[in-house]
């Protein structure tokens, strides 16, 4: 697991130096961008802004980092909160927006892979609740363990499991046709969300 193999807590004081922080940000930029992109349902430009804000906040909060969690868990928690803040802000803006289509036009049109598939996955993720989406993205798309995801989200392990179960059930219905057909049927099983 990438998150567990990252830098030790003892490194934190050294990150105060600008060049060390630049290295810290450089090492996590791509992954942070991917996580934000997935949590923001495919809005690449906003994901970049959010990641930048998260690095900025991390730099500001670094002096207060006590080393209770790994520095990555700590940083991803900041990132997830930044995403949540962004989503609240977007919801507020769409509430006051004159043209709701304009406010909802968030998915980046740049073609990466299959744009149609991307849009479908984004839509399916958008239909999940925030908790379900976060749990699903962290565990199944970013491949964190349930414990790591719970730590990042600041939720109980049982809550995360429950979110995952519901998210999987919903996505199996929405995106079930993306499963490769097997000679043994659709192969879906309950309780394999770890």
């Amino acid at each position: 697991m990438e998150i567990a193999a990252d830098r030790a807590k003892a490194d934190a004081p050294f990150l105060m130096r600008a060049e060390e922080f630049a290295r810290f940000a450089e090492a996590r930029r791509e992954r942070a961008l991917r996580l934000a992109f997935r949590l923001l349902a495919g809005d690449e430009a906003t994901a970049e802004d959010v990641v930048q804000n998260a690095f900025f906040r991390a730099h500001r909060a670094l002096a207060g980092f006590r080393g209770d969690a790994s520095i990555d868990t700590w940083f991803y928690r900041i990132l997830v909160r930044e995403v949540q803040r962004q989503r609240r802000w977007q919801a507020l803006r769409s509430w006051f927006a004159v043209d709701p289509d304009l406010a909802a036009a968030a998915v980046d049109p740049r073609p990466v892979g299959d744009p149609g598939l991307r849009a479908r996955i984004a839509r399916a993720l958008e239909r999940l609740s925030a908790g379900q989406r976060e749990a699903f993205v962290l565990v199944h798309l970013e491949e964190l363990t349930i414990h790591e995801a719970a730590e990042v989200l600041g939720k109980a392990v049982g809550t995360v499991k429950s979110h995952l179960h519901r998210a999987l059930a919903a996505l199996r219905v929405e995106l079930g046709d993306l499963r490769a057909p097997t000679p043994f049927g659709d192969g879906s099983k309950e309780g394999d969300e770890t």
Partner: protein
Amino acid sequence: MSDDRHWLEALRDGFRPEPMSPSRAAAFRRALDARLERRARARRFALPALAGAALAALALWLAWPVTRATELAAGVTSAEIDSFVDPDTFASELAERGDYLPADYQGLALLLEDDTADR
């Protein structure tokens, strides 16, 4: 289970952002560096400015009451302070000066004094 694994892999592969091009990555770094530098600069100037203002306010606060207290202290003699401390001394001094009673009462006092003198 394995079917879910393939399905999830398909979702992971199908739903990822384009890797940052070197120019975009450089722009990202520059923007972040600029924000951090702005913050560092603000802290460099804001902290000394705040500390200076606080020191100036403290100096002003200390200087103002000290001056007034010194002036008051210089105008008061130790005898006057003693008279305030001892009310009898204060009263007798006023009696000597004859101005511890209002004029009407001083007139009455004179009449009484004359009266006792006549007896």
